[in-house]
């Protein structure tokens, strides 16, 4: 088979950053091509260039031998390119169907054909096994569901080239499977698929060939994925060997630090109780919509509680608001970095110091030197790729933004309970192991840590204990000694027969 | 060379445009420079005076946005070493008494109103209406003291002539334009659908015009309406030029010519020849009707 999609000497620079430097490679027809690299290596930039969103400074793109000269997203679409971006690109106020048709609504003379609008979407969603109502407003969907809608875009248009930028970062294994089947089908139809991910398992599961980027340059190109190993890829990406990503170290567990009793709220109706000890890392696992994030937000006081108490070291935390939680020593690193995490328009330094600066600002007056020190320390520790600490956070790559948010909470002082929701979403392998190291270190100092994750290997790899949630309830509580993949998954899957008898079903209340 | 400022409160209003125009004539005649500045509120007046001082003017004439600004204007003028005259509206002290030693040329708002009232009363009698069957629309804009004085002046004459107080209806304008007056008057007309004959008074021609338009839109004939405005500029003349008579019966023309030309001239004389102007000159308004407005305007020296 010949090369269908070709990148030739693509370069793209931003002020202070060379995002892509002379990148050339090609992909064959009917192939799924993996794209890997550290955070900030230039993967998303390459995909943006392909989508017509950004134009390369130099270089050319050929599809099916034809040189492409597109100037806008529209031209790229007309050339048969469709891109699912790393950040969700949906309009919350419109319905699922309208979002999927956006940019090319069906109809005559500008009047929308409403039966086609909904009908076609219904068909396509059913075809790929996504169970979402096409007439629902996107605003009413959870992140996971939104990601599925985003993915459905790939099949709505009859594209020749499909690029997916970290599509599984907010999906759990079940939704991921749906996506993988879909990709297999597209491959069979002879499409070219570019697939960006930090999850090696997925790369090996899906891809036929692989390109690794490093610092904007082509680090390696593998036309046959079968001939390489994980370790090799990691080395090519990170530039050093990482033998064991998890690096789990057992610790002493002390007295109970966090005690949650009968906690419930509007989106989580079944009361939940649990406790975490000093030095313990507790994992929460579940499918999308299991209610883990809701639980975390209730503990932190981000949403208001209808009942229940939270106490730290025996002292009850009241009232339930983030400032009070922080003062009592509870912090939450939220899952949705774009809406709940980064502060747009501000730079890295300010984003990091937003909460912890009160410890070193007498009478509310800032100490710029101390803030700078703090920022530099965590930029180095978390390996944030940026020209300076003054860079605006929106100019960072997705993974680097996540690192800054992590830095915000890791720099907080007097933390007794650290809750992190999807700590490594979109983060590269190298940085992941650094973050795990930090977690072990903090736990070693006596902190109680709650990790919420949809990646089963991760929860099993780094936690002392796992609580499995399913449909807003705790379905299982498993000690590390008893970790068993099948048992955990079984607990996470809703039992359809039992579920219909439950008084409060999260899924139906939506 | 002589430089004189002319500050007015509403530069977009035709009245002040005319005052400026006539002041310009005086400037051309005598060869002095006239600086025209619009100042809609007290703060703008202050900076306008500073500005004149900075330009090296020797004196200025002002129609103030509010008469209570008096002490402030006098202090500012003194600080900038500028001679001061007022036009149209006379400055008052904190206690409301007129400041006598600032030369003033003007016309009392109440007097103009009374002329309006007189015209209406005469026309009612001429048409042989019974005052009890007539409604009066008071198109009001009460946040402007001049407006209150004018309207109250007109109504006082009506009442003195036996117009029943109960037949006077308030139509508050939200803004001083015709549309606002039209909307407010429409409500009054609809509320009192039983009354067949109407008269209307207001702050200016535009306000009365609104009331006239309202009668037309609810189908009241032109000969059942007597609206008398104040101003006599284009809005009124346009009405008179219409092929058939409308409910806009007449207007009290006040002459911008004397107010513009004479004040400027007097100020010039004061500066150039040290001739102090009279401290108080009061001018009169003249009633103009559909058939005589051209002569009235000529008499007053406009056109």
């Amino acid at each position, binding site marked *: 088979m010949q090369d269908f999609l070709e990148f030739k000497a693509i370069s793209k620079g931003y002020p202070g950053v060379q995002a892509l430097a002379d990148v050339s490679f090609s992909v064959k027809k009917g192939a799924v091509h993996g794209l890997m690299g550290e955070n900030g290596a230039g993967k998303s930039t390459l995909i943006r260039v392909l*989508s017509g*969103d950004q134009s390369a400074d130099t270089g050319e793109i050929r599809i099916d031998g034809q040189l492409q000269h597109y100037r*806008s*997203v*529209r031209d790229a*679409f007309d050339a048969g390119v469709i*891109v699912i*971006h790393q950040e969700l*690109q*949906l*309009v*919350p*106020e*419109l319905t699922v169907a*309208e979002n999927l048709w*956006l*940019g090319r*609504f069906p109809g005559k003379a*500008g*009047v*929308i054909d*409403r039966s086609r609008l909904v009908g076609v979407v219904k068909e396509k969603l059913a075809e790929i096994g996504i169970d979402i109502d096409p007439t629902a407003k996107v*605003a009413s969907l959870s992140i996971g569901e939104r990601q599925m809608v985003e993915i459905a875009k790939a099949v709505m248009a009859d594209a020749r080239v499909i690029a997916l930028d970290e599509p599984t970062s907010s999906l759990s294994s079940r939704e991921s499977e749906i996506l993988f089947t879909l990709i297999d089908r597209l491959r069979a139809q002879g499409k070219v698929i570019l697939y960006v991910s930090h999850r090696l398992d997925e790369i090996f599961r899906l891809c036929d060939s692989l390109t690794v980027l490093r610092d904007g340059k082509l680090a390696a190109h593998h036309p046959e994925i079968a001939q390489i190993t994980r370790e090799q890829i990691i080395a090519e990406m990170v530039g050093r060997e990482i033998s064991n990503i998890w690096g789990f170290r057992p610790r002493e567990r002390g007295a109970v630090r966090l005690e949650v009793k009968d906690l419930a709220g509007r989106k989580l109706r079944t009361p939940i109780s649990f406790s975490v000890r000093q030095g313990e890392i507790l994992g929460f696992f579940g499918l999308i919509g299991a209610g883990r994030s809701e639980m975390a937000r209730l503990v932190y006081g981000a949403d208001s509680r209808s009942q229940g108490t939270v106490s730290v070291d025996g002292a009850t935390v009241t009232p339930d608001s983030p400032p009070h939680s922080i003062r009592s020593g509870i912090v939450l690193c939220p899952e949705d970095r774009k809406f709940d995490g980064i502060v747009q328009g501000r730079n890295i330094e300010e984003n990091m110091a937003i909460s912890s600066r009160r410890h070193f600002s007498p009478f509310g007056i800032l100490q710029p030197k101390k803030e700078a020190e703090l920022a530099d320390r965590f930029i180095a520790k978390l390996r944030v790729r940026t020209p300076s600490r003054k860079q605006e956070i929106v100019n960072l790559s997705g993974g680097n933004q996540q690192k800054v948010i992590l830095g915000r909470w890791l720099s907080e002082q007097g933390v007794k309970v650290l809750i992190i929701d999807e700590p490594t979403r979109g983060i590269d392998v190298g940085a992941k192991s650094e973050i795990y190291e930090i977690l072990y270190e903090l736990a070693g100092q006596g902190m109680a840590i709650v990790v919420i994750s949809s990646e089963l290997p991760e929860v099993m790899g780094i936690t002392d204990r796992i609580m499995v949630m399913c449909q807003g309830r705790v379905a299982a509580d498993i000690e590390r000694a008893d970790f068993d993949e099948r048992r955990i998954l079984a607990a996470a899957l809703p039992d359809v027969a039992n579920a219909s008898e439950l008084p409060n079903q999260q899924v139906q209340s939506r | 060379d002589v430089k004189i400022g002319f500050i007015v409160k509403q530069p*977009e209003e*035709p009245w002040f*445009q005319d005052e400026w125009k006539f002041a310009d004539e005086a400037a051309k005649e005598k060869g002095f420079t006239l600086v025209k500045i619009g100042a809609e509120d007290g703060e703008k007046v202050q900076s306008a005076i500073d500005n004149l001082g900075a330009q090296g003017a020797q004196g200025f004439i002002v129609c103030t946005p509010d008469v209570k600004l008096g002490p402030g204007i006098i202090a500012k003028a003194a600080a900038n070493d500028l001679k001061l005259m007022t036009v149209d509206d006379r400055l008052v002290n904190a206690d409301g008494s007129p400041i006598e030693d600032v030369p003033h040329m003007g016309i009392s708002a109440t007097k103009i109103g009374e002329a309006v009232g007189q015209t209406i009363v005469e026309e009612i009698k001429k048409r042989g209406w019974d005052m009890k069957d007539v409604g009066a629309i008071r198109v*009001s804009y*009460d*946040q402007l003291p001049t407006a209150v004085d004018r309207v109250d002046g007109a109504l006082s004459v009506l009442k003195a002539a036996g117009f029943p107080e109960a037949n006077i209806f*308030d*139509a*508050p304008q*939200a803004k001083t*334009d*015709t*549309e606002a007056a*039209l*909307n*407010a008057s*429409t*409500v*009054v*007309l*609809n*509320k009192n*659908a039983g009354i067949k004959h109407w008269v209307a008074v207001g702050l200016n021609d*535009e306000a009365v*015009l*609104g009331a006239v*338009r309202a009668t*037309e*839109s609810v189908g009241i004939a032109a000969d059942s309406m007597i609206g008398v405005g104040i101003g006599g*500029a*284009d*809005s009124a*003349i*346009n*009405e008179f030029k*219409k*092929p058939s008579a409308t409910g806009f019966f007449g207007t009290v023309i006040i002459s911008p010519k004397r107010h513009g030309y004479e004040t400027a001239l007097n100020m010039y004389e004061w500066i150039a020849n040290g001739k102090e102007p009279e401290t108080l000159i009061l001018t009169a308004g003249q009633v103009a009707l559909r058939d005589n407005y051209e002569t009235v305007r000529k008499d007053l020296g406009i056109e």
Partner: protein
Amino acid sequence: MTSLKKLLLGEQGLVVIFAIAFAIVALTVPNFLTERNMLGLLQSVVTIGIVACTMMFCLASRDFDLSVGSTVAFSGMVAVMASNASGSIIIGLLAALLCGGAVGLVNGVVIARFRINALITTLATMQIVRGLALIASDGRAVGINDPGFYQLALSKFLGIPTPICVMAVFFIIFGFVLNRTVFGKNTLAIGGNPEASRLAGVNVSNMRIWIFALQGLVCAVAGVLLASRITSGQPNAATGLELSVISACVLGGVSLAGGRAAMTGVIVGVLIMGIAENVMNLLNIQAFYQYVVRGLILLLAVLLDNLRSAAAGRRT
């Protein structure tokens, strides 16, 4: 949820609340529910109503237009002057549409192409256009020569004054455009998430230019009707119109953050504004107290609407 509560707090809650308020006013305020007063009320909101149609699009796409008042005055002036000069009402109308459209187009191009803040741009054109209107007329009202021109406002269609009919037609057209056409959906999409719309291939800057141009055209129509109603072109007309129109839209549930708009809501918003004025005058409330009452009504209306959407659990 009981069914009453459901009705009040549902999608059409604003309409229901409005209907209840209307019924109360109709029963308690004398002279309110007469045919004459109703027609008078509707006529008094014609300018606001017509301009609100396109302002809705403008706000829904996350833009902002402060120049509408000036454009209404300017195009009214142009219509009168052109028809006086040419002796043809049609030419006057076309000239007004041309000028209105041109103002809108300039707004749109400056905002969308040069990427200048909409508030500043339209604040600037608001002043420039008002200045042009004043310069063109030398600050004076221009009378209409041809009596046929004022028949436009006085004529009736099926017993209803033409301006009201025109407003109704605009409501229908723009309601349809918003909900049933690509243009409408794209407008909402741009407002809801400009970045996503751009990436989906919506030509965001063209859309914005179109919306502003349309707004200009619609202002011209409102300006012609206004000139015809007051039988002259007045350079000072319609000052402050922008805030009334924007309030009406926001009252009707149009989000200033973009992406949310509904024609029924806007109609209700326009009517609330009109009824408030009307009732205050019917009840003979003093001018100074009217300010206070107007403010309170505004607050109350949004407060009710907010309670409603809070209860409906909509994320804001």
